[in-house]
């Protein structure tokens, strides 16, 4: 098909997509209060004014920096552990001390106490962020890539493409997510970041593809797409410059929510003993699993602190996703 206006290198397709909504200005949100602002600029000024979004964003930036440069935050190296100081609660621990541990054994300098091997719990939580974040972000990237591609293909072209892709989606959706991941990993018998990522991607792309398909279906027959087609634009151009930018909103919202749920899924599968291998890597799931047995014996600090780290991270992603959804939904204004 002839196409006279290939996108220039470096030209952002998103700009034209927004222009089709009528009135687009490069983000200059503060100068112009209303009218003429693009959806994205509007959403951004909305979001930055929401204290909840900003808090969640800050928490996530901190967790991200734990994953990227743990050495800056950690107070102790990964191997600097003293087995003589194992399982100690922090000095400020308000609850009753675990059996066999007296007040005078507590050591200063451990904000969250020590682990079973006598390592600093605070540092262990910092080191544990990396595998969780790596898995969650990689899985989300691939899910978005696969889900969006298949969703657009199936929504835009319809017909046989749609039938085949939709049936495959149905089949994968037929396996409950956690159950499916559990059985995949148990059968593969290999643990580690790569098998875990592959399994989560293999099961996770379906709902993304469904949602993108839905929004492409609603976009496909709109006037600006017809106009582009009448001007002789090729399918690939229509998809890349008109369909994709306009279906990006739900994708971004879903991706944010996904990162949170994949952090949770990684920890859950690791906790069940099929995710990351114990001993080699540190991760929140492993720390929680190790803490669980001793926690029922009274050492609850082994459990509480890694749980709080995990909950805060997942919560922040979910809150961010919720706020993004509100901001990007024109009906909610």
């Amino acid at each position, binding site marked *: 098909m002839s196409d006279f206006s290939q996108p220039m290198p470096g030209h952002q397709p998103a700009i034209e997509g927004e222009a089709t909504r009528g009135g687009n200005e490069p983000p200059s949100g503060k100068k112009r209060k209303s009218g003429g602002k693009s959806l994205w600029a509007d959403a951004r000024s909305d979001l930055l004014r929401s204290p909840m979004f900003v808090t969640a964003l800050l928490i996530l930036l901190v967790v991200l920096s734990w994953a990227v440069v743990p050495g800056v935050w950690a107070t102790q190296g990964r191997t600097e552990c003293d087995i003589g100081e194992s399982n100690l609660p922090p000095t400020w621990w308000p609850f009753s001390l675990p059996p066999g541990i007296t007040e005078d054994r507590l050591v200063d300098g451990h904000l969250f106490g020590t682990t079973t091997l006598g390592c600093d719990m605070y540092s262990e939580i910092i080191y544990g962020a990396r595998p969780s974040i790596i898995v969650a972000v990689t899985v989300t990237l691939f899910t978005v890539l696969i889900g969006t591609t298949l969703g657009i293909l199936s929504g835009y072209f319809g017909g046989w493409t749609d039938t085949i892709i939709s049936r495959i989606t149905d089949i994968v959706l*037929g396996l*409950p997510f956690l159950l499916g991941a*559990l059985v995949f990993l148990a*059968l593969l018998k290999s643990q580690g970041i790569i098998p875990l990522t592959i399994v989560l991607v293999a099961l996770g792309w379906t709902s993304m593809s469904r949602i993108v398909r839905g929004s492409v279906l609603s976009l496909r027959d709109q006037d600006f797409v017809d106009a582009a087609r009448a001007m002789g634009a090729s399918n690939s151009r229509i998809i890349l410059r008109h369909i994709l930018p306009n279906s990006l909103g739900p994708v971004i919202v879903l991706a944010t929510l996904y990162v949170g749920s994949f952090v949770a899924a990684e920890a859950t599968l690791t*906790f069940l003993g099929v995710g990351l291998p114990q001993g080699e890597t540190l991760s929140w799931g492993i720390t929680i699993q190790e803490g669980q047995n001793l926690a029922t014996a009274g050492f609850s600090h082994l*459990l509480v602190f890694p749980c709080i780290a*995990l909950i805060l991270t997942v919560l922040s992603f*979910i809150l961010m996703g919720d706020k993004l959804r509100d901001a990007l939904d024109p009906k909610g204004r």
Partner: protein
Amino acid sequence: MGRYTARRLLQFIPVILGTLFLLHYLQTLSFQINGNPIRALFGDRQPPQETIDNITRAYGLDDPCLEQPGNPCLGMFVDRLKNLATGNFGQDFNGRDVLTLIVEALPFTLKMTFLAVVFEAVIGIVAGVLAGLRKDKLTDNVVRISTTLVISVPIFVLGVLVQIFLGLYFGNWLKTREVPDALKATFSVAYQEDYPWASLVIPAFVLGALSLGFIARLTRTSLIESLRSDYVRTARAKGLKQSRVVGVHALRNSLIPVVTFIGIDIGALMGGALITEGIFNIPGIGGLTFRSIRNGETPVILAVVTLLTLVFLVASLLVDLLYAVLDPRIRYE
């Protein structure tokens, strides 16, 4: 309606075959990659080749296609389907019928899932209605914040935390008080055989908590939507009492998505049951799966997952059909 049901049933067949094939293919791949699982039974010992061959044959794992990586082993798949149709789920490595194992374990899981569904439906709907009726007031904010929190806590984290705080600390405190034994059994760290219902209450609470959050939110949004609609205004204008307007006109319509959710949720509950049963040591399907994963007993894992997947698929099918009955506005032609 009749045509829709027929079409939906016809669509159901490829999906169920596809999902079963997915599970089958995974298992053959696992055998092709990891080698004969029978060898793993003997651990470090070296049994004579003859013994291995005999056992391999007894479990039907002597098919030559299991030595060709990537071969989907269609013949084995057909055999398996035949076995499934006659209710033969195979045997575990101790020679016990997997079906017997499942039948023994099922009552515990069913009881817990039942309690969880009752719990999430009752509390979730009540909380959602209260929040929806008092939009943006205190109740609404409390419900919104607490449901967001509940949704972001991964189920295993909630499980271990509840086990520590309600089971261990509160349970120990309760043991020194004069209360009925059933109450003591309710707040304990593990399942107690003498109190089959009471000691399942807390695990069921953990299992249903996530869905409770979703149900409360769903009820709230859809109730707010129907309270704004024309037929509710008409009902008010006719002079009906508030309780009748809300209870009959608004609520009944806004419960349709909630009913759908509860149906689809069965899959999530099945996955979650594995975790809660593991944490609280309940001898149900989850405990069975746990042990099989640890021992590498693929026949059991596969049988359980196949069964749960079938339950999940049938539940989704029923929900889809129910949806068409419940909501006369929906036309599937």
